């Protein structure tokens, strides 16, 4: 009997623990899914609440008003059509339910669903419709306009500029863009967010991950040498380098190279050999450390998950994966995050678009702070990769991104796609300057080589960032 009493007490503790667990989990799951649940189309209650409110303004990081509403909750956007087009995807058009856009993701704040009771009371007593909070984004409208002007017209693609220390996104653009003020320019193709929603093969920019994997698995990677013969023959798809045309007999050879040199000149053969030597498992593990195959649940953005193919794969596929082709699928935003990891001593920050939420009275209701997403690399490994990426810009394929006197690092990529005539031009890189900690990803579809098309765009962006202070006051673009 006395044993039964003791056991009964233990059971009571178990039951209390069960209830505590349920409470804790309930709070957790509600708070983590809050944004998505509030914005869901099926949420009738929230829709009714929204119908009774007037949305607050959307501002860029310097206070430029990008979108505002009149008393009937009709949205009007910035006067300048260039600004409108440049920030269209970041701001969004509510009727189109654009994921990753501010008007959709932050609708809870904009519609005043976070208002405190006294504030709501005052609106009710005045008989006016509740006006929601103003949302200040991290986007810089001047840089966005400048970036849009540098992007080749009538090409598809994206530009992402991120502060690699804080994770703030300065530019989140997709091309072709649209004019939120103009209904006729709204179409599914134009409103889709390329930067966060379109996954394509990254091309040679993936060599950052392959090199990281080699660093983690080969202790002697610095001294190892590889011989690039120009072709690794697989019956299905032989591995060749850029510029090689097997039919004509011109083969690009690099001869004996170290990994650093191969990285700088973007030698496919070397990296294919490295990938084969690593094996699919090791390479996949490193990729997953960088966020591949993970379910991105960022609070400010809805990002398509990057895919590293699973299962047993043939050597030819593994080889081409090391080079960045063969069923790899990445969004430009994720590649930007990978580059910023290298820049930020191996720490990958979570991308954010929300800077602050301010009430109509001017009081700041909520700020936002940097969040670490992952730590894929150690500080030493990141430093080595930084050197590699510096070599790309000083002596390799990324020379057109170099700025005299400043440390620019990057990696070019030219991703081949089956149904495209030209390759997708990729460039990911960053400024290794203490007062301009920015990383950039540029993708131009069907445009040619990364070094020739994408790198100059990046150079222009870096130049602008070095000359202008991003945190300027109410600057007119």
């Amino acid at each position: 009997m006395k044993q039964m009493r003791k056991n009964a007490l233990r059971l009571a503790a178990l039951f209390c623990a069960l209830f505590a667990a349920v409470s804790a989990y309930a709070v957790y799951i509600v708070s983590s899914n809050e944004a998505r649940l509030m914005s869901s189309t099926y949420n009738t209650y929230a829709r009714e609440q929204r119908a009774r409110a007037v949305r607050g303004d959307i501002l860029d990081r310097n206070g430029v008003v990008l979108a505002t509403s009149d008393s009937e909750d009709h949205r009007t956007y910035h006067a300048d059509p260039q600004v409108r087009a440049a920030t269209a995807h970041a701001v969004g058009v509510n009727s189109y339910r654009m994921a990753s856009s501010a008007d959709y993701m932050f609708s809870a704040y904009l519609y005043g669903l976070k208002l405190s009771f006294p504030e709501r009371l005052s609106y009710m007593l005045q008989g006016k419709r509740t006006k929601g909070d103003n949302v200040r984004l991290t986007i810089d409208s001047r840089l966005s306009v400048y970036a849009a002007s540098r992007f080749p017209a009538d090409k598809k693609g994206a530009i992402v500029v991120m502060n690699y220390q804080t994770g703030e996104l300065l530019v989140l653009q997709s091309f072709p863009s649209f004019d939120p003020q103009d209904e006729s320019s709204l179409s599914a193709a134009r409103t889709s967010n390329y930067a966060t929603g379109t996954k394509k093969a990254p091309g040679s920019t993936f060599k950052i991950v392959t090199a990281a994997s080699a660093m983690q698995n080969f202790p002697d990677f610095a001294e190892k040498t590889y011989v690039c013969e120009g072709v690794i023959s697989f019956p299905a798809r032989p591995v060749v380098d850029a510029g090689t045309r097997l039919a004509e007999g011109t083969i690009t050879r690099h001869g004996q190279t170290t990994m650093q040199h191969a990285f700088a000149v973007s030698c496919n053969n070397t990296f294919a050999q490295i990938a084969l030597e690593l094996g699919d498992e090791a390479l996949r593990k490193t990729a997953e450390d960088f966020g591949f195959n993970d379910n991105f649940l960022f609070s400010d953005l809805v990002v398509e998950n990057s895919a590293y193919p699973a299962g047993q794969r043939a050597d030819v596929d593994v080889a081409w994966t090391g080079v960045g082709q063969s069923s790899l699928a990445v969004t430009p935003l994720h590649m930007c995050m990978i580059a910023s990891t290298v820049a930020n001593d191996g720490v990958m920050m979570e991308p954010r678009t929300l800077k602050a939420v301010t009430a109509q009275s001017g009081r700041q209701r909520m700020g936002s702070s940097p969040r670490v997403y992952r730590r894929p690399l150690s500080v030493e490994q990141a430093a080595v990769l930084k050197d590699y990426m510096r070599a790309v810009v000083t002596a390799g394929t990324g020379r057109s991104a170099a700025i005299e006197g400043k440390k620019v690092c990057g990696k070019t990529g030219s991703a081949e796609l089956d149904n495209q005539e030209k390759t997708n031009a990729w460039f990911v890189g960053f400024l290794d300057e203490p007062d301009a900690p920015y990383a950039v990803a540029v993708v131009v579809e069907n445009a040619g080589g990364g070094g020739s098309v994408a790198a100059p765009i990046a150079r222009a962006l870096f130049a602008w960032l070095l000359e202008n202070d991003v945190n300027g006051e109410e600057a007119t673009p």
Partner: protein
Amino acid sequence: MSEGAFELLALLMRYVYVLIGVLILWRALRWMRRDAKAYKKEMKSLPDAGLVGEMVNLKTGQAQPLPREGIIGSSRACDIRVKSAGVRRIHARFEFMEGKGLCVVPCWRCRVILSGTEVKGRGYALHGTQLQLGGAQLRVRLFAGLKIPHPAYPEDVPPQQEVAVMPWSEVSQLPLFPMPADSLDQDGEADYMPYSAASLPVAPEAPMPYPPADYEGNYTEDGQMTWQYAYSLEELRQAQENYNQQNDEAVPYQSPLPRRRRRSRHE
């Protein structure tokens, strides 16, 4: 009431309901604490609450409190712990049943011997019953006032069984004259704990409790009377013969022994 005003009211009432809910929880907590304190106080004043007696281990002399229902065995989880050879972790289950006594149910393949007979199924132990588990001997003591049919009789203990020897130091605590074992009051209930003859010492060398012939009232230093013979055996036999003789002559009785005075403690 207008919609806006009702909305205002409803929004205000939200906090009221939460407040009342917290109040209810607070009161419930206080109630439970108060109840627990009262119960603890009650239990302190009733040290025997929930117990029906004691189980004495005859070899070690240790007595363990006997709850109404419980288990006997060698494990620490048992209510009555018996650490001895042949006693399993959980050896037997016991339960007090009104009017029947302490029902002992041995566990599967465990031997329990109750007053000499092996228990098959269930056996009922009364006050004074001796249990044997493996190598251990236990005696059941039940509180007065419990409804059991009758206490254990000396006939229950077969003669060949080893009978417990009460330490001599305990004997002096016993009342001078043992009461008869079957004395019950008019309700038919025993209102004291009788001792069976078997539980008293049977020590042949122990001196008979009579004062000696040369008894002058010897006391120890702290006033305790020492038991010594008052008369020798020879004197006693002589007295007995004299009495028998005198009875035959039908003479009024006269004590054959010289008058002695026995000083008592209560002078």
